[in-house]
């Protein structure tokens, strides 16, 4: 019951990754933690940063930047771990997302949300629920469920996509010329 009322809330927590600002529905957010020591898990995918002790339970932490194809997070005083509850294979699990900084809680009406861009986006639109314009800046509303439940293959693809983009700057011209 309580959960239902939370999920229909129109509040979003915004956070930044590099230059970009993203937001997730607060219904998914349980906690915001300061950066603590993360225990690395050997032989895990890069974006799986490790585990931390969250009041007696072991919480997996995802480096959201790597997940979105950016460079690994550099730890600053603003670095935070956002603890979220997401559904994965029919089970609710908690996961920590490493973000560069947490910004604010925004009230966003459904009517303000614009559909995600289909072309020209660096990010796969399936992870994005919509865009919203706040202070002349676009914020991407993330579908956290999809972000975390996608396994490494998809994120690797994104990574290669991005690296391809860099390559594409030079190479496509060659191919089109041919």
């Amino acid at each position: 019951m309580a959960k239902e009322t939370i999920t229909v809330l129109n509040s979003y927590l915004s956070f930044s990754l590099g230059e970009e600002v993203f937001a997730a529905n607060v219904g998914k957010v349980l906690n915001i933690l300061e950066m603590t020591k993360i225990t690395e898990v050997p032989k895990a995918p890069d974006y799986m940063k490790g585990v931390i002790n969250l009041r007696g339970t072991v919480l997996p932490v995802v480096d959201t930047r790597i997940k979105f194809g950016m460079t690994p997070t550099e730890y600053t005083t603003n670095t935070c771990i956002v603890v979220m509850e997401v559904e994965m294979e029919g089970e609710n699990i908690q996961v920590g997302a490493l973000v560069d900084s947490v910004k604010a809680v925004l009230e966003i009406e459904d009517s303000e949300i614009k559909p995600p861009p289909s072309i020209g986006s660096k990010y796969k639109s399936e992870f994005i629920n919509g865009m919203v314009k706040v202070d002349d800046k676009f914020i991407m509303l993330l579908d956290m469920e999809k972000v975390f439940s996608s396994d490494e293959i998809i994120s690797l693809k994104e990574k290669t996509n991005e690296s391809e983009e860099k390559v594409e700057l030079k190479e496509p011209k060659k191919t089109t010329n041919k």
Partner: protein
Amino acid sequence: MDKFRNKFKEEATDNINDLEDALLLIENETENKELVERIFRAMHSLKGGGAMFGFSQLSEFTHNLENLYHLVREGKLKITRKLLDITLASVDHMKVLLTDEDFDNPEIKAKHVNLSLQITKLLDSETEEDGRTDLFDQKDSNKIKSYYIYFEPNQDVFNDGTNPLFLLDELNSLGDCKVFAHFNKIPEIEKIDVTKCYTYWEILLATEENVNSISDVFIFIEDQCELEIIEIVDYDITLNKKIIEEISKLAEERKDVGVIEIQKIVKKYSEKTDSSEKIEKIVSKSGSLPSVKENVISSIRVSSNKLDQLMNLVSELVTTQARLSLYAEQSGQPDLAAIAENVQKLSRQLRDNAFDIVLVPIETMLTRFQRLVRDLSKELNKSVVFTAEGAETELDKTIIESLTDPLLHILRNCIDHGIESAENRKKLNKPEQGKILLKAFYSGANVHIQIHDDGAGMNLEKIRAKAIQKEIINKDTILSKKETLDLVFLPGFSTVENVTGVSGRGVGMDVVKRKLAEIRGEVELDSELNVGTTLTIKLPLTLSIIDGLLVKIAHNHYLMPLSAVNKIYATDHSNVINKYNNLIILDGKQFPFYYLREEFDLSEGNQAIEQVIIVSYEDQQIGLVVDEVIGEYQAVLKSLGKMYKKQEIISGATILGDGTVALVLDTNKIISQFSQVKINL
């Protein structure tokens, strides 16, 4: 209401299990009165509870069954195989009724009707022979009760066209009925108004129906009459002529007898009759009552969620306590150290207690096994007896839960492939009845469960031939007996040519092995052709706590299960670096080793002296090189969760005294995984 219904379902499941258990026991001791009582009690609570919480089908169904066992209790019906078959089938059906109350599935409905018919058939055949001659025989039938009914209609009851006599007729149809009519309110003849009713009645009714159905008879004139329905005794008093005579005498003498007077008479007569049966009943009652009471006191039901929560809290306490001890030691205050020590002692006791709570005896699984053996051996026309030793051996409830399916599978194999048919057994000079023995016992920090059958055993040649045919091994491969037997644990390996409904589909032992591995269990197989097969399962006592060796690599802590660790050697860094063959010589012996710092892709930098931990892997000794050994550590094991399920080399994590997380390494997986990588390279 749903909450209560769920509660009832839980209770009912317990009752049904208890019932099944008792039924299986009674098969061998048909004369055991206590068991009959137990069966009866279970049925009775099922019936009562079912009716109360709206499981009317279940209640009705059980009621019929209960009638059957009522006859058994009275010694009028012998426990026969047929009776047990029907009852067991009914028990299965009850389980279905609990979940599928409305017969969504037509098959279930057909089954329901069929079973009910069988039961009534059995019941009828018995009750016909059973003449109700004995005066006090009905005393034992606690479903028949005697009621006193006082019925005085209003004088103008006829105005609605009601005929009170019809009501009396209806009452009569409910059971044995004695009616005493009272005419003393009829006025003198000249004052009589023929449209009015002056008569009133006192009725003694012996019936199986309850008060509600009796008052239903009067439902239409409820507000036009004075009505009193009182239960007098729980047997049929209309059959006791003396009581009836006395009451009717009184009824003639007086205006009305009244319930108090009747009860007095009934009491008087039942006291006089000190028949041996009655004494027996009292004895059996006093015998059974305390045991019920004991049950109530000696155990309570707790939802497993709460237990899990308790375990979590205890684990957290243990972790916090480790922190306190650490802090107390650092602070150097003697007072604090004393407190910390006390807390440590208490939390250890609490931990042991809590772990003890979640331990469940293996006994809880046995009923299912017994049932399986019984049903299956019948189906396959084999005679098999199943015995269990050490059923009191306790295991973590989560282990028990995941253990049942593999064990059922193993038993199925035993009966299907292991035990031979009676003729074959005769030829081999074996007793016709096959034996399956389940033996459970403690061995160190492990529990061993052995399943032994005295059946055909495994044919090593056949296994070998099959393995060659399936191209699992080469023709020239030489395998030891153990290695050959281990082949059956490979996926898709089944030597039985025909796929039966029971087993032999090739998804057999490999699944068993995998399932057991999930709970850190190991299987071993030993078999002698024509003598029998023994399967040994080794299980950890509990899944949630392990003794480990705490080690450090770079800035990370890791834990290795202490049971895997054999020896620790210190060695110079130069001995382990840049070795192509990955071999190290320690104590004059050669050990293959893995340099974990490198394998885990940890940052550069190393200690001058490093530690080689020798662990056993299958039959070999293998070294794992770490930076530093910190010491023994009792760890509360926590799962890494879904997101890390692919990291098989890590079996979990634990939280250290300073709040950091240490990963628990699965040394077997590490070695098997890394050795594969090496080969691929």
